[in-house]
């Protein structure tokens, strides 16, 4: 099969690759770029574990063909910490104990980030709605919602990469 020349920004860094055009964005992130923070859960767009930010939007990277990301910017969980310092979302999750098995965590944090970009003062209900496409089987969501509330309340959000 003819290779597709993919150019995109991942966590602010320009990437150029020749890939099989049938690859999913998830495959490129995990298997080629080795950004394994993005998890594959169901692989059919139902669980949200593979969520990444594509431009300004939260997407399931298992449902996006890699060529669809051509010319666009992707943020993965690896793009949040800056010089080894956790960003406020990660820090808040850690402090309130929002992480158990951790499989949903990258998607949850990226979903929170998209929410807070659009709605800096979300209500509990806004938060629950924003993460309702990201399933968690461990936490009962209580501490995840609490972590997002804390992240939202931090006035100075030192984001690692604000835009891809």
């Amino acid at each position: 099969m003819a290779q597709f020349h993919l150019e995109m920004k991942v966590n602010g860094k320009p990437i150029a690759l020749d890939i099989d055009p049938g690859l999913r964005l998830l495959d490129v992130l995990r298997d080629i770029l080795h950004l394994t923070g993005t998890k594959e859960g169901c692989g059919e767009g139902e669980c949200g574990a593979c969520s990444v930010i594509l431009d300004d939007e939260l997407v399931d990277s298992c449902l996006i063909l890699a060529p669809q990301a051509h010319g666009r910017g992707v943020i993965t969980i690896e793009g949040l910490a800056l010089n080894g310092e956790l960003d406020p979302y990660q820090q808040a999750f850690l402090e309130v104990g929002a992480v158990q098995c951790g499989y949903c965590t990258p998607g949850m944090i990226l979903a929170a980030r998209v929410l807070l970009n659009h709605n800096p003062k979300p209500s509990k209900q806004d938060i629950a709605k924003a993460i309702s496409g990201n399933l968690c089987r461990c936490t009962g969501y209580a501490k995840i919602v609490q972590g997002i509330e804390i992240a939202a309340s931090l006035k100075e959000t030192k984001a690692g990469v604000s835009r891809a």
Partner: protein
Amino acid sequence: MKKRGYGIANMWYGIGNTANPNPSGAFVDFLDDGTAIVLTGCADIGQGSSTVLAQIAAETLGICVEDVVIVSADTEVTPDAGASSASRQTYVSGNAVRLAAENVRNQVIAIAAELLNIPTETVSLSQGEIWNSDKSSGMSIKEIINKCRSKGILTLGHGSYNPVTTELDPETGQGIPYATYAFATQVSEIEVDTETGIVEVKQIVAAHDVGTAINPQNVEGQIEGGCAMGIGYALLEEVILKDGEIQNPGMSTYLIPTALDVPEIHTIIIEESEISGPYGAKGVGEPALVPTAAAIANAVADALGIRMYELPLTPEKIIAAIKNRKEVEAI
């Protein structure tokens, strides 16, 4: 019409495997720099066992939890600690780690007593220092471990623990299947829509006797997660089988609760120290889930005056039950 109801459910649940041996082992290496490595077969699958085991080792050795490294669930190097199941790891592996750490601690205490020329009974380890009765001797644990090294002594410890149980009598079913039990009560408030049959859980209060809560934040997390899973069990989750084949093998057909389905969960931790547990701890993993569906089903019965006997309480079943009652009443 929306009808509100309240339900309560109580449970007790045995910690560890039922009437069967289920031992855990642990190794502790107290290093020259005053930090410790704990080897345990215990798999942390998100419940926080590595955190709790580090806390238990740190408490026993008198050092900071940050100075404990847990090497876990690696059959190449770690001793067997059984499965992360049966709500057993804090209790069983926690005891193994405690015993292994006590084993090392006794060696350090013996050397410290000899060097300080005081009886071993008055020596303890705390805050990285050697204590004589309730006063710090001013000597650090690190110094004692270095003294051990200069004498050619390695400070290694091992421990294992198996809950004390008996087999069950095959005739009567009697015996002691568990060494200890967890207890809990949960109360749920629900609202059921009599037009749509949809049940909304408004809040859950969950009171759990966990022995000593070694890590209260993790205990809360376990309870909140258990309640969410219980809501799924009560209202959503059903494996549909046809000719041995699962008909709903996806997250869009086998529904689990999302953040929109889980209400405020008020956790109440009851700390009743368990004498056989590590620092008084028992377990909370499964108990968190056990009473939730019963509390919700009781609340639905309270709201509708109809007792339903089959989970999950789907809108279809609730509408059918309401309709059935109307027909019965009409006769």
